[in-house]
């Protein structure tokens, strides 16, 4: 058959060309390689050497008269493909086109100004695609980057303020967060608004050549987020992604609370020493814990008192927190999107819903995202786009707070035997202002309840906030000639946040305020209750109004297949305006929406003069911030023979922040770079490494600080802040005519390679960084009236290495892909005008402190000489001699202190392994961090006595001679000595190595068979499971069981997500 066919074809070709060719047709279907079920519509199929062509229809079908031996297929978004017509042209062809976007050799990276092929880039770009981002299930987009980005460090030591560093710190006191670009422009809104399901990819710009196009705000690196859009001539597809995340309660057992019985023993001891006497004798100014109140109650016999106290020994306040304050969190996320395109239009429409039930009962979040993105090509050479994103975020925060936040008994932390509810679950009150005995006598029932009742607070709180955010992008791009195109992009963002805090008369805040101002001797209502009976309503409106407009010319010329020039230049104008208004209404009644006026001017005596005389608090405030930036920039690259590339960029910024004189002093920020694709050289014949590229760049970017000014500035306060009701002003800024913008210079050297038949690929980069003119506090003798001033006085220098390796370790039926991210980032303060470290400096490495020659996060300690075996007193060194002179010890010169090292990891990264077999794949992401230290919390007896700050080390204190063999915790002495406690707390004995390895993320996915999908008439279907926190530490350097990520706080609970994804 086959032989016959080839013979017949040969005969035809030889003898009857015209006739037979006219009758022969070639036909087939064109599909996309990446989604083999979706036909490619609108592809041009042309015969080689012939003008005849055909366009594929909506099923991807084409037909052509066969007049040549091969066809050429071109389609937008796909690589040009040439194909020889097979021997039997009558058979239907099935052709798969490679998408240009998906081409490994043609990774496109976005800088926010242009999209360039990574192959021709000189700078350091790290791109994260959608698939990888989806392996971290989260509501927000930024936390998805953890563990999958090179050179990016998440500093989570402060649970309420996660900091991100790209290649280490570049500034000291200015904004240290990377610049976030969303769809070409810096994103000014709330970063949590971005729906991660709409994100197509994220590129991290790490070196100067990549980021300096962003100029004065790029010093901390840039994160470029690109959202999804449609494609011309593509089928309508519908994708759905839904998942649910369940997270345990935070682990309250990891808090260092002192067991109730030991705490009660301590209170009894202190009571017997007379510690509470002055508090007991002046109940109007002090609160007492129940145990102290029982001990002080002379009407109770010793036996009665002991019996009452013994009951409390059995309570643990954490039980009540677990039951009444916390719950397991449940986050649901749904997303659906539609995309497609015809010849002149493509579109992407998406809708997302997030509903989060948070760990604290009463706290909830819901977010709705809508996005519509359209691109038109109405005439040749002209492209228009319009993109609208709407986000509504509604939050409810009615929780009175987690354990350890608030719940103060006057200035002291909550005692460990407190109860929030009785055995039957009825809410119990805490006597937070005065002792119970005193509170009960106040007002003889004419005052409101003066107790703080946490469970009632939770019920009564009515705190909601709704944010509406609209982000609009429109643009036009016109191809002026083959060489040149011009574009104008405009972005407008408007966001409104309405927050409402209604404190009904049943909340503690309102009851307390009304009570404080109650004057029972007055009969006139307004004088009897200057703060009216009724609720208090606080409303806050915050508006963000931001626009950016950019005009840009792009030129590209490629000639003789050797020269490739790429140029762009543009100018940009940006404005961000924040306006905020808060007002308070007293005596608010939501039922009749009525309220009462209050007198803010006159001062009223407090009830029984318990709090002196005061005016009624004013909460009204206004805020209006306006930031403007004007920039011009240019960028160009030239590639010769696909081998040598050089690039350069320059940018100049001006803003209204510092004052005009500072703008004038600004020098342009610039970068230069070069790349050499060694493997394309004719002399290169190292076949094991088929791809090898060398890169080098150098350049400067900047950093701004909106909090400083070159002039003496005053901050005005409203008249209500003053005791004389006059407007007043505070001197905010000392005049500093020498103020400049901070500058960050970076040198980057890199190698990109692929080896062993592309089984191993990756890049290795080395960089040096120098940040100069950094604003730093300069400590000044306070006689000047200023403790510190900010001057451009510091320099940070750093260097590091980023290594990314991708390996196909096993390739076959069973696949094992590994990815190794390794980063080394070391930096130190190389210049600072006045060292913060004077005598007695000790630190825990969590706050930035510039000390010349050390990391800004350096841990510094007092030297430790053990415990005095006779007394359990902590011992240190003065001039090399063992000493107990604590006031000298805590003032010992910096040179004599122990300098441990950095508080942030110097070496960190991830090892991600994906194992897949048939339809199932499992990814284990292991994170490691090395080369850093942390200060372990411990007991500070003075803080324990005065503020109730607890730590379990209290139980490990030295009590008898010989204990010094087992413990380093000093003995407890009374009166406590704050200097002795500070010495111990900040001594070197409490510093541990932070090095550890943890299982950070697990992702399991099951992709259903194509046959099943076909039956369901869907393109693909997968189920997945993910855990982003397992509290699973595989190895740690400290032997005390402390998680170095949470040395101070309690551990969060574990979480797990389950989800489903399909495409129609």
């Amino acid at each position, binding site marked *: 058959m086959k032989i016959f066919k080839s013979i017949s074809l040969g005969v035809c070709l030889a003898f009857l060309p015209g006739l037979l060719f006219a009758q022969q047709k070639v036909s087939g279907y064109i599909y996309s390689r990446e989604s083999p079920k979706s036909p490619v519509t609108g592809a041009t199929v042309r015969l080689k050497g012939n003008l005849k062509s055909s366009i594929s229809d909506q099923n991807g079908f084409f037909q052509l008269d066969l007049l040549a031996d091969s066809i050429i297929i071109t389609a937008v978004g796909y690589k040009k493909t040439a194909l020889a017509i097979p021997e039997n042209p009558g058979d239907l062809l099935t052709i798969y086109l490679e998408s240009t976007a998906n081409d490994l050799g043609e990774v496109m990276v976005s800088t926010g100004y242009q999209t360039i092929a990574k192959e021709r880039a000189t700078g350091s770009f790290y791109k994260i695609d959608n698939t990888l981002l989806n392996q971290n299930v989260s509501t927000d987009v930024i936390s998805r980057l953890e563990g999958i980005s090179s050179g990016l460090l998440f500093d989570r030591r402060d649970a309420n303020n996660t900091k991100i560093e790209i290649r280490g710190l570049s500034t000291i006191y200015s904004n240290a967060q990377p610049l976030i670009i969303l769809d070409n422009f810096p994103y000014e809104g709330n970063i949590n608004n971005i729906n991660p399901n709409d994100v197509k990819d994220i590129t991290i710009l790490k070196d100067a050549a990549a980021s300096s196009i962003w100029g004065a705000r790029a010093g901390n690196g840039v994160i470029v987020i690109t959202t999804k859009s449609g494609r011309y001539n593509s089928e309508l597809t519908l994708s759905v992604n839904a998942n649910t995340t369940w997270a345990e309660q935070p682990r309250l057992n990891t808090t260092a609370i002192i067991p109730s019985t030991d705490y009660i023993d301590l209170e009894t001891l202190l009571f017997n020493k*007379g510690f509470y006497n002055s508090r007991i004798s002046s109940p109007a100014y002090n609160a007492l814990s129940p145990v102290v109140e029982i001990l002080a109650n002379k009407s109770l016999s010793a036996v009665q008192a002991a019996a009452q106290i013994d009951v409390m020994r059995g309570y643990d306040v954490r039980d009540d927190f677990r039951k009444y304050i916390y719950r397991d969190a449940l986050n649901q996320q749904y997303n659906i999107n539609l995309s497609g395109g015809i010849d002149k239009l493509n579109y992407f429409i998406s809708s997302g819903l997030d509903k989060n039930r948070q760990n604290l009962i009463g706290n909830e979040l819901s977010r709705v995202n809508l996005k519509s993105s359209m691109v038109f090509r109405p005439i040749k050479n002209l492209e228009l786009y319009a993109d609208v994103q709407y986000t509504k975020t509604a939050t409810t925060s009615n929780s009175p707070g987690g354990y350890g936040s608030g719940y103060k008994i006057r200035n002291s932390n909550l005692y460990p035997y407190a109860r929030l509810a009785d055995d039957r679950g009825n809410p119990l009150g805490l006597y937070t202002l005065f002792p119970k005995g005193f509170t009960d006598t106040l007002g003889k029932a004419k005052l409101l309840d003066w107790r703080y009742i946490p469970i009632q607070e939770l019920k009564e709180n009515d705190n909601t906030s709704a944010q509406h955010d609209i982000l609009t992008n429109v643009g036009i791009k016109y191809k002026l000639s083959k060489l040149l195109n011009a574009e104008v992009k405009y972005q407008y963002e408007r966001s409104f946040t309405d927050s409402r805090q209604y404190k009904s008369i049943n909340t503690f805040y309102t009851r307390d305020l009304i009570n404080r101002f109650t004057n029972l001797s007055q009969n006139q209502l307004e004088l009897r209750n200057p703060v009216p009976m009724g609720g208090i309503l606080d409303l806050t409106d915050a508006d963000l109004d931001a626009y950016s407009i950019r005009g840009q010319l792009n030129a590209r010329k490629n000639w003789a297949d050797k020269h490739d020039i790429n140029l762009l230049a543009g100018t940009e104008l940006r404005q961000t305006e924040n306006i905020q208004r808060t007002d308070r209404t007293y005596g608010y009644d939501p039922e009749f929406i009525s309220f009462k006026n209050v007198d803010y001017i006159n001062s009223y005596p407090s009830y029984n*003069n318990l709090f002196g005389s005061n005016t009624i608090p004013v909460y009204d405030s206004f805020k209006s911030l306006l930031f403007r930036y004007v920039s011009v920039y240019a960028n160009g690259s030239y590639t010769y023979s696909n081998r040598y590339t050089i690039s350069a960029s320059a940018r100049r910024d001006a803003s209204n922040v510092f004052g005009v004189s500072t703008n004038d002093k600004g020098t342009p920020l610039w970068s230069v770079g070069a790349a050499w694709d060694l493997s394309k050289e004719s002399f290169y014949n190292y076949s094991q490494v088929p791809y090898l590229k060398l890169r080098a760049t150098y350049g400067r970017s900047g950093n701004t600080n909106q909090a400083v000014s070159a002039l*003496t500035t005053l901050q005005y306060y409203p008249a209500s802040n003053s005791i004389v009701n006059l407007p007043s002003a505070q001197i905010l800024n000392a005049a500093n005519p020498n103020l400049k913008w901070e500058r960050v210079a970076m040198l980057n050297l890199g190698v990109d390679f692929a080896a062993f038949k592309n089984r191993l690929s990756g890049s290795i980069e080395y960089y040096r960084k120098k940040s100069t003119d950094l604003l730093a506090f300069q400590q000044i003798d306070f006689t000047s009236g200023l403790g510190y001033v900010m001057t451009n006085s510091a320099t940070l220098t750093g260097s590091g290495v980023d290594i990314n390796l991708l390996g196909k370790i096993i390739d076959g039926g069973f696949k094992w892909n590994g990815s190794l991210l390794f980063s080394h980032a070391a930096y130190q303060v190389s210049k600072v005008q006045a060292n913060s470290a004077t005598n007695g400096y000790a630190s825990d490495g969590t706050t930035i402190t510039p000390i010349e020659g050390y990391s800004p996060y350096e841990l510094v300690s007092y030297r430790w000489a053990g415990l005095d075996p006779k007394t359990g007193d902590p011992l240190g060194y003065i001039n090399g001699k063992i000493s107990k002179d604590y006031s000298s010890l805590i003032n010992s010169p910096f040179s004599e202190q122990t300098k441990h090292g950095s508080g942030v990891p110097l070496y960190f990264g991830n090892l991600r392994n994906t194992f897949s077999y048939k339809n199932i794949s499992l990814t284990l992401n292991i994170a490691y961090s090395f080369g850093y230290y942390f200060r372990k919390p411990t007991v500070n007896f003075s803080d324990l006595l005065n503020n109730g700050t607890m730590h379990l080390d209290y139980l490990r204190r030295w009590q008898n001679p010989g204990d010094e063999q087992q413990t380093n915790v000093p003995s407890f002495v009374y009166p406590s000595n704050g200097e002795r406690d500070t010495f111990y707390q900040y001594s070197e004995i409490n510093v541990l190595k932070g090095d550890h390895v943890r299982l950070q993320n697990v992702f399991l996915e099951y992709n259903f068979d194509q046959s099943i999908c076909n039956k369901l008439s869907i393109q693909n279907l997968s189920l997945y499971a993910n855990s982003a926190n397992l509290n699973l530490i595989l190895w740690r350097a400290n032997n005390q069981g402390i998680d170095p990520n949470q040395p101070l706080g309690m551990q969060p609970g574990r979480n797990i997500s389950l989800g489903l994804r399909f495409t129609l």
Partner: protein
Amino acid sequence: MKKDQIKKIAFLIIGLCSLAAISCKKYLEAKPDQSLTVPGTIKDLWAILDNTSTMTLKYPSSSEVLSDNYFLRDDTWAALSSTVLRSQYIWEKNDNTNIDWLSYSVSYASNIVLENLLKIDPGPSPAEWNSVKGSALFFRGLNLYTISQLFAPPLSQSTQNTPYGIPLRLSSNFGEKSVRSTVGETYARILSDFKLSSALLPSKGLTKTRPSRPAAYAMISKTYLAMKQYDSAGYYANKCMMMYDSLLNFNKDIIPSAAAPFKRFNREVIFHARSGSSTILAPARAIIDTTLYRSYQVNDLRKTAYFKANTGVNSGTHCFKGDYDGSGTSSGFVFAGVITDELYLIRAECYARAGQTALAMADLNKLLSTRFNTSFVPLSAVDPDQTLTIILTERRKELLFRGTRWTDLRRLKDENEHSVIPKRWLNGKMYELNPNSSGYVLQLPAAVINLSDMEQNP
């Protein structure tokens, strides 16, 4: 694309760019924060001076902490969280005195005002301009005066030229290094600031937190008193009283038994200022010296107006409630302003020291008649010495928690017949502050010494 097209585009771009450059400057002059301003008007300078949280409410409280008007129970002392307060209570050396030094921010604000005032044209009617200048000088003088009473030795023949005066910052330039002045220079600068201000200030300020001419005279008088130059002290006390000498009559103007009998800004107050709150002086801790309490007669209304009986473990003793801040001193404030009663006492003392017994006793009796109930019998004295003794006794009883006792202890310590050796009993041990003790002068803050290389007090 043709060449002329390119030219057109190029012109357009150049045109747009130059247009942008022109409007750019104006665009970038917009104020980034509406609540911020660069001080440029009289209104701005008043706003700085009217900032009561810096200019009115943060003067040092150590003058009272070091005085003998109160004592602590041993357990109260042990329960104090601040080690510096524990040492100050027994006059032990401690160089952690930052809190007191912080009131130099008053000098800084004053200097900012004085420097920016020079850029403003006083115009044809310079009353406001003068008033701002006078106020700034007054505030700076007040700061230097309060600091000098804690950190510089009392002025005498022997200390006048010693280098232990306080640093006198006369400009806001933070780059200037602090140097100590001589004790003589310290007092000369304080006097010159107050005297200059007295010539510029109005007879009455808009509020009592703003300086006035009588307040300036009063401060000059207080400064001379601390310098033991009694003629001048009396002269300026008189000048102040010629302008303002109103007294509260405790029989009808206040309710002595009230929790806070004295309203803020009451009519005895010439100028209002006070310290920040002090834990050690809070009524829960500080017990009034029992001998002092007993020295008030039964018909003395101050006995009820100033004191409250303690309860609990402190019962049988009394705490102070007679402050002029209207708050009942729940937090332990020290008044740092000027009240007319002090002027009566200064003038009386100066008359007495000048031998003018009758005039002295007239002043004293006028004051006391407002303090006692109607059964008050005017006091009399036979000779100047007895007059002085009576006046100093009454001075002690009138001026509590005003910061004046410390200055009095310092200036009287070398006058044999009037000197007192303050004593404390703690944990069974007695502590004394002898006339030659270095405890009369506080140590400068260690941080200030480290950064400025100034010499520490002996």
